[in-house]
């Protein structure tokens, strides 16, 4: 096990990394953009979808009408919350594989670059 909490090692390696360059690099910008484009709409969606349930059950009663047989809309909506959570988790885990690839490229570039210079 390497010594993870050795402050000195961390500071020294920090100096070797050009953070300004990473920040300005096209790849890092693209990674941040891609993440934002994925996460922000989904977050807005799940928060709205989630709070719709207590809001609609508190202020209205139309969800109490039967949907399929005896089962009313409110139950379908409640189960839909479960499905939504599972689907969004799975989507994110799938999508994050591509974020990981982008991240690896950024790190590789940084390390190779330094190797070439010294």
């Amino acid at each position: 096990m390497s010594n993870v909490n050795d402050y000195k090692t961390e500071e020294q390696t920090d100096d070797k990394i050009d953070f300004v360059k990473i920040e300005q690099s096209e790849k890092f910008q693209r990674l941040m953009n891609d993440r934002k484009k994925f996460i922000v709409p989904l977050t807005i969606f799940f928060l709205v979808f989630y709070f719709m349930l207590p809001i609609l059950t508190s202020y209205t009663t139309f969800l109490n009408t039967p949907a399929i047989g005896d089962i009313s809309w409110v139950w379908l909506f409640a189960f839909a919350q479960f499905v939504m959570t599972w689907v969004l988790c799975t989507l994110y885990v799938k999508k994050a594989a591509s974020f990981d690839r982008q991240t690896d490229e950024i790190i590789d570039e940084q390390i190779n670059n330094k190797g070439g210079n010294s």
Partner: protein
Amino acid sequence: MNITYFLFFLCIIVCTLIITYWAAKQSKTTNQFYIAAGSLTGVQNGMAIAGDYISAASFLGIVGTVAINGFDGFLYAIGFLVSYLIVLFFIAEPIHRLGTYSLGDVICSRFPSYKMRWMMAIGAFIISILYMIPQLVAAGLLIRLLLDIDYSTSVLIIGSLMTIYVVFGGMFATSWVQIVKTVVLLSGTFLLSLIVFSHFDWSIAELISQVKLGTPLGDQFFMPGNLFGSPLETLSLHLALVLGTAGLPHILIRFLTVRNTLEVRRSLLTASWIIGIFYIITLVLGLGTVALIGYQELIAHDPTGNLAAPLLANELGGDFLMAFIAAISFTTIVAVVAGLVISATTAFSYDIYYHIIKKGQTTEKQQIRAAQWTAFVVGLISTLFALGLRNINVTFLVSLTFIVAASSNLPVLLFTIYWKRFTQTGAIIGMVCGLTASLTLLIFGPHIMNPNGGWIAREPFFPLHNPGIIAIPIGFLGAYLGSIFSNGPKSSNSDFRRFFIKAQTGIDTKEDIQ
């Protein structure tokens, strides 16, 4: 206590102690003690997260609440589950990349100072203890009801077990006890729900019509509004449920026990499936209780409804099945409190003792010893508290924990990770505002100020049982205003750049050093 019960409990105690014995051999370094050397796989960690998260309050409480209140009981469970999306999208990966052993590490990698570490440690400590005490009290009452042994004895048994796991086995023992708990809990309740369905010829319609006969609510049972009357109260509760998980230290430190961010995501995917499936099972058990036992008989045994699951087991499979479910509830409790002991221990022995008192200058051996002593003292003190609070209703502290976490830890974590202009002053003000707001509103609220049997017998100053809708914005606002009106140091731009790139890419942290 009859022999079946005794054998089941003995089996669980022996199993977990074997795990602890094995774990003790691998808990020689701080890395192993605090984060199990990052050795868990995503699936194992996901099971441990579920084991850490699903408390006896969720298991027995939600079955009972569904049986009594119908739909509204199920509404609780949804918030508990959806909250994992916030953890996955915003919090989990940065914590893994920035933290070594604690949340203090995460915040201090941006604002390195003793003040900040104090704040984070105190926050984690308060949240863990506030959560642990009601769990212990509930456990004591429950074991007394189930096994007919004395309250003090049951609290002492659970208190000593959780302390033994953590003192000797650290995070290894805690994680594996939680994994075992998840397997036992999920398989046991799944089995029970199958038996329920078999009694209704596997027909949901048949189950539903029996439920309507069993409850005094009739058709209304399947409609919302039986438990949550006031809309504001409902929204406030949901806000705390969905945001709270992302601030609970004992859940968040679990992201440090895996190797890389891929495993972090796998942990959360696994956890969300297990927790989701589990709550659907509790729904079936709740409905089964009403259909097979009926509301009147349930209430006659215990007015809170907490005994719904064991009573159902008794009805379906007699003494044997009831003993099995009692043993499962017991495992559920010990796994959760062990997770809380280790999170409180980390906050004290790692953040306060190692970083602040010893300034990072101690040997591995001394650190381990300090951690073990801390775990011992934490276990002892919470057990003593639980013994003293036997006659006081403390269950409201569980929902309070979510409010405190969402109003103090969450704003600080989110702003630290994502907001450029955030400052240390803002972080500290945010923590203090969130903590004081949630605690004050609770004290002035109807849980404590109640003319009928409250700790302070008079009309409450603050009307809501769930102060989340006020306290959470106060926490965020405190952190925001504190940052706007404080002068950050000039160098903060390059510091933030370095911090942000590390948080987002993990460059040059743990994984890459190896």
